[in-house]
């Protein structure tokens, strides 16, 4: 059964090829069947492979499938090979399964848009690239997938390309993530020159053998990989592209900018955990980046009034939690949170998409309101998603994964109280903004009429993801609830175990109690948006101090302004100045010379037959004279 592994990425890739070749010749129905069907089949195969992997584990709990050698030059011979271990099983199943649900949702969501086939073409290419990324056996193949998903992200953010703003947003996402990608590729060069291979397992073994803990190479390599991860996962300081990426269609935001692509950085760090173990300083940096980002994004989310931007900042914040877990060596905890986050954040985005579509494209939450009776499924889905995001105790999946990260941030030998406190405060803020969203959108007075209701292809994914958001956390219960943690055992085959401080305060259940408490307190605080009338809120917002603060948070703490002035404007200025340098005339002179030659030759072609004859005659005389008088 494991031999079917290559089919998982091949199916969406084939879907992409078919859609690309038959682009204009396909009807909407055919495009939807090919686009969603290829990912659906891929999900079925992924489930088969996962079941067979769990039921009869391959030797060493690793299955490697070599397809062919990509190229062989200068000692570098990367293979097109897939590497399946416990971690990639989780990623592959989540990507294909959530991906299929989102494709199914898109078949209805996009049905009135032009470029229907093009949309599924890009989406299939994305799923294929993402699967290559998580299955890659060597870092070069991983990088291929990494760039593939970046390309698809760019294409899909700018999907509605008739609006120039969307195109700018896509360009921004591409360029900002490109900064991280450059760091990543330099990291790959460094690893290859030092360890002479890019295959991940030999590379990790070589690094562990040759580099002592804290050695310069290990720190440099880990820092460069972290740069790549920070760009892709929208962490500080390369986070500015993610809120603007919401310009794309909502299913794209759900699939790429919430569930899968943005977690590629988490995957990369977990996959190369040996390097990060060798570089404790960089790991501390990972934890700090994660904590700062999660707090930063929480404050930003509090001030947004575009429903999708709230969710974008919450994604940034939840990935911050994953980075925090990675930073304190809680590798498995990060993967656990990736899984539950994929469920509840995809759910939130899809529910938000249903709301936006029903209101005829309205994004502003203060123009929504009172939708809980009109759109009951979206309402309940949103409640489940928000509860899971806010880590409502016991019943939601988000609680188990987030609580595990909060406990780990204190209980790990690398953890400390500051990280723990940051995570806890972040949890409180998350709860506030999540339920602010719920209360403003679904309660109060109705502001905009509902013009369209979602049908089954949009509702089914909401139900399925709601169910997963509720039960998805029961695969890893905390210590104080009993010892039931199959996911930990499963991931333990692929990732090193967490070293904990013996008898830490974190594992007594008090920390979990606090996590639960802040979640409930957050909802209680958020009720201010429920009871206060809209007018009172307006008055509050009109006062100068909160207003200025809100502006500051709304604009993401001015990072866009800062980057505009520090990087964009100087570069533009330099480009303008450098336009008239010395190199320019050399090239424009060449062009001018060509134009003049063209003019001269063109003038000789005057169409008068007698001139041609005269020229031919003169030529003949010259040749004759030359031959005779020589």
């Amino acid at each position, binding site marked *: 059964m494991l031999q079917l592994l290559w089919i998982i990425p091949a199916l969406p890739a084939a879907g992409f090829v078919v859609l690309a070749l038959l682009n204009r010749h396909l009807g909407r129905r055919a495009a939807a069947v090919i686009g969603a069907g290829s990912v659906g089949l891929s999900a079925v195969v992924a489930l088969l492979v996962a079941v067979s992997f769990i039921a009869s584990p391959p030797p060493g709990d690793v299955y490697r499938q070599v397809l062919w050698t990509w190229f062989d030059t200068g000692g570098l011979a990367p293979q097109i090979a897939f590497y399946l271990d416990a971690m990639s099983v989780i990623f592959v199943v989540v990507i294909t399964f959530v991906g299929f649900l989102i494709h199914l949702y898109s078949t209805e969501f996009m049905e009135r848009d032009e470029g229907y086939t093009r949309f599924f073409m890009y989406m299939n290419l994305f799923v294929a690239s993402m699967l290559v990324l998580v299955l890659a056996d060597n870092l070069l193949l991983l990088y291929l997938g990494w760039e593939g998903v970046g390309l698809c992200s760019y294409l899909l953010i700018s999907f509605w390309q008739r609006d120039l703003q969307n195109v700018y947003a896509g360009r921004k996402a591409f360029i900002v993530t490109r900064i991280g990608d450059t760091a990543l590729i330099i990291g790959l060069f460094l690893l290859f020159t030092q360890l002479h291979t890019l295959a991940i397992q030999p590379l990790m073994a070589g690094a562990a053998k040759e580099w002592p803990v804290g050695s310069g190479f290990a720190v440099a390599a880990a820092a460069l990989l972290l740069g790549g991860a920070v760009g892709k996962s929208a962490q500080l300081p390369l986070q500015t592209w993610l809120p603007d990426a919401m310009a794309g269609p909502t299913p794209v935001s759900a699939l790429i900018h919430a569930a899968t692509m943005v977690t590629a950085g988490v995957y990369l760090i977990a996959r190369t955990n040996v390097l990060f173990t060798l570089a404790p300083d960089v790991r501390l940096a990972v934890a700090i980046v994660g904590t700062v980002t999660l707090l930063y994004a929480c404050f930003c989310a509090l001030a947004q009034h575009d429903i999708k931007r709230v969710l974008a900042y919450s994604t940034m914040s939840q990935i911050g939690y994953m980075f925090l877990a990675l930073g304190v060596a809680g590798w498995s905890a990060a993967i656990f949170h990736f899984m539950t986050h994929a469920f509840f954040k995809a759910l939130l985005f899809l529910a938000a998409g249903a709301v936006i579509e029903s209101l005829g494209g309205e994004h502003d939450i203060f123009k929504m309101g009172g939708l809980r009776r009109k759109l009951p499924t979206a309402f309940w889905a949103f409640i489940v998603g928000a509860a899971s995001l806010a880590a409502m105790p016991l019943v939601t999946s988000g609680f188990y994964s987030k609580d595990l990260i909060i406990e780990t941030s204190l209980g790990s030998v690398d953890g400390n109280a500051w990280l723990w406190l940051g995570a806890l405060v972040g949890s409180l803020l998350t709860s506030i903004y999540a339920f602010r969203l719920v209360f403003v959108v679904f309660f109060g007075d109705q502001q905009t009429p509902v013009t369209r209701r979602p049908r089954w292809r949009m509702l089914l994914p909401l139900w399925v993801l709601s169910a997963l958001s509720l039960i998805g956390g029961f695969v890893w219960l905390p210590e104080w609830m009993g010892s039931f943690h199959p996911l930990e055992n499963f991931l333990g085959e692929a990732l090193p175990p967490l070293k904990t401080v013996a008898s830490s305060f974190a594992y007594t259940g008090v920390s979990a109690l606090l996590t639960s408490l802040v979640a409930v307190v957050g909802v209680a605080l958020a009720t201010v948006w429920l009871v206060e009338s809209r007018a009172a809120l307006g008055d509050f917002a009109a006062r100068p101090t909160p207003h200025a603060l809100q502006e500051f948070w709304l604009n993401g703490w001015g990072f866009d302004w800062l980057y505009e002035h520090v990087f964009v404007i100087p570069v533009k200025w330099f480009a303008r100045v450098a336009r008239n340098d010395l190199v320019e005339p050399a090239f424009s002179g060449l062009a001018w010379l060509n134009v003049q030659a063209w003019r001269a*030759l*063109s*003038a*000789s*072609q*005057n*169409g*008068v*037959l*007698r001139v041609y*004859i*005269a020229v031919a*005659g003169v030529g003949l005389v010259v040749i004759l004279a030359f031959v005779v008088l020589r």
Partner: protein
Amino acid sequence: MAAVSLDHGLILAAILFVIGFVGLLTRRNLIVVLACIEIMLNAAGLAFVVAGARWGRADGQVMFLFVLAMAAAEVAVGLALAIRFRQSLGRLDVDDADEMKG
């Protein structure tokens, strides 16, 4: 019968060729242009005949027959062109046919 020397024959051929060529350059009527080409062809034919007589061989006269056949074909095509020319442009001025200028 006094034999015509080779030099005289070739000079006559050259004069005929130049007359035809100058006519080609200066006249604009298509019929006259065709006539000038005929003159130039005959100049070439005369050169062949004179040269054949000089060496006492038949090759020159054989070549002249070829030239005659070619001249007939050329006139047939040329006159057909002249008719089409007249039909499409209304006149027979070769300078009118300058639509191919670059």
